[in-house]
């Protein structure tokens, strides 16, 4: 029981192998209508395998496609992860915001930009640096998480985060949580890149699914280490920015059109 599984010497997720597998899966997938695949190519890994550092999950936000007044990504996140949206909360100032919509306006030109803001899944996360218990951590595949089993609710990480991405659960949740997404009073929480979905092999997040279903296609999720992934392709083509790039945090969320 106390024997932790050793990391395999040669990673089963080496880029070559993955590239080969994804090529093979694409060939095996049945194309029904152009663009519609019956067998979705997801980044499933066997359930007994730990997350691998060969993968780095990331998201591309195309702010030019992000619609004013639309909050599909926010409500999809709230539904998937079971947090009460600000508008429904009895204490709006304390309400959790795993993701929120921002409307920016250039004071000189009046140009408006819409974008979702959430945990940027930094490669060098300040929240991890300041955590006194080690509860704030970065998983091998780049997802920044709070281990709620060791979080003491001190909120240093909330102070350290340049993106105001984290919130504290102030109220008992009285068994209203989703079975797949435990969360609870006295702990800090934030966007998990839908780790429960990623580990299931869905290869996407609730917000991305909702944005795509709504026809905006402003969000792309995928493996930034895999040169064949859609996100890598789009990142190669589009000029993108990191928010507060001056902090040198190497973000997992990249924005186009800001």
């Amino acid at each position: 029981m106390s024997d932790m599984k050793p990391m395999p010497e040669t990673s089963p997720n080496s880029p070559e192998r993955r590239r080969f597998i994804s090529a093979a899966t694409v060939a095996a997938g049945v194309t029904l209508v152009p663009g519609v695949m019956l067998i979705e190519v997801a980044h499933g890994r066997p359930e007994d395998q730990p997350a691998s550092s060969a993968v780095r999950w990331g998201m591309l936000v195309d702010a030019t496609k992000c619609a004013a007044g639309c909050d599909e990504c926010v409500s999809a996140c709230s539904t998937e992860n079971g947090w009460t949206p600000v508008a429904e909360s009895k204490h709006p100032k304390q309400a959790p915001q795993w993701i929120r919509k921002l409307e920016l306006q250039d004071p000189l030109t009046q140009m408006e930009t819409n974008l979702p803001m959430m945990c940027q899944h930094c490669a060098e996360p300040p929240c991890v640096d300041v955590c006194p218990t080690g509860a704030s951590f970065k998983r091998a595949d780049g997802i920044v998480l709070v281990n709620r089993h060791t979080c003491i609710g001190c909120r240093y990480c909330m102070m350290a985060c340049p993106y105001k991405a984290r919130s504290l659960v102030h109220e008992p949740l009285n068994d209203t949580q989703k079975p797949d997404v435990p969360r609870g009073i006295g702990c800090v929480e934030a966007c998990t890149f839908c780790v429960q979905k990623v580990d299931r092999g869905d290869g996407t997040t609730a917000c991305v699914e909702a944005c795509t279903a709504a026809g905006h296609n402003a969000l792309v999720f995928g493996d930034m280490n895999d040169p064949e992934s859609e996100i890598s392709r789009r990142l190669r083509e589009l000029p993108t920015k990191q928010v507060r790039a001056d902090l040198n945090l190497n973000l997992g969320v990249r924005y186009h059109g800001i």
Partner: protein
Amino acid sequence: MAGKIKRLLALGAVVLTTAALAWAGSDDQPKAGGAPKPVITKAAKGEQCVEPNDFMRRNHMKVLLHHRDETVLEGIRTKKYSLKECINCHASEKTGSVAASKDDFCVSCHSYAAVKIDCFDCHSTKPQGSMAMHPLNAETAHYAHKLAAQADRKISAEDMAGIAQ
């Protein structure tokens, strides 16, 4: 020191519990000489546990805590010792939960042995899929309309026609 005594007491309680259970079998209200015993609500699913009963009685906390760290820190998602799976099998048919009433699976033994766990401050006590059965849960009621709209949108008649071709 106090912790040690508590542990010893609790361990004693496990031994007592185990002995009593072995003696009482799966009786609904096991009683030994009039003294109340914990109720073991029968698992709703499965013929047997993930390990033999006597191992689980003594060691369920160890396997749970070990699996917890493997899952959260490393992303290992095996089902065997997953808390979600315990709940899927052990939720009572009456309450649909492992910890809603005093006779529910994760409650009765613990109150008998004076063990307090905080797992259900965060973890749902109900099996997966049960949220969908209660669309008017307080926290998700405001999404009922959105969920319905999404269900409509996901597969349209055109999509179906496209697939059939």
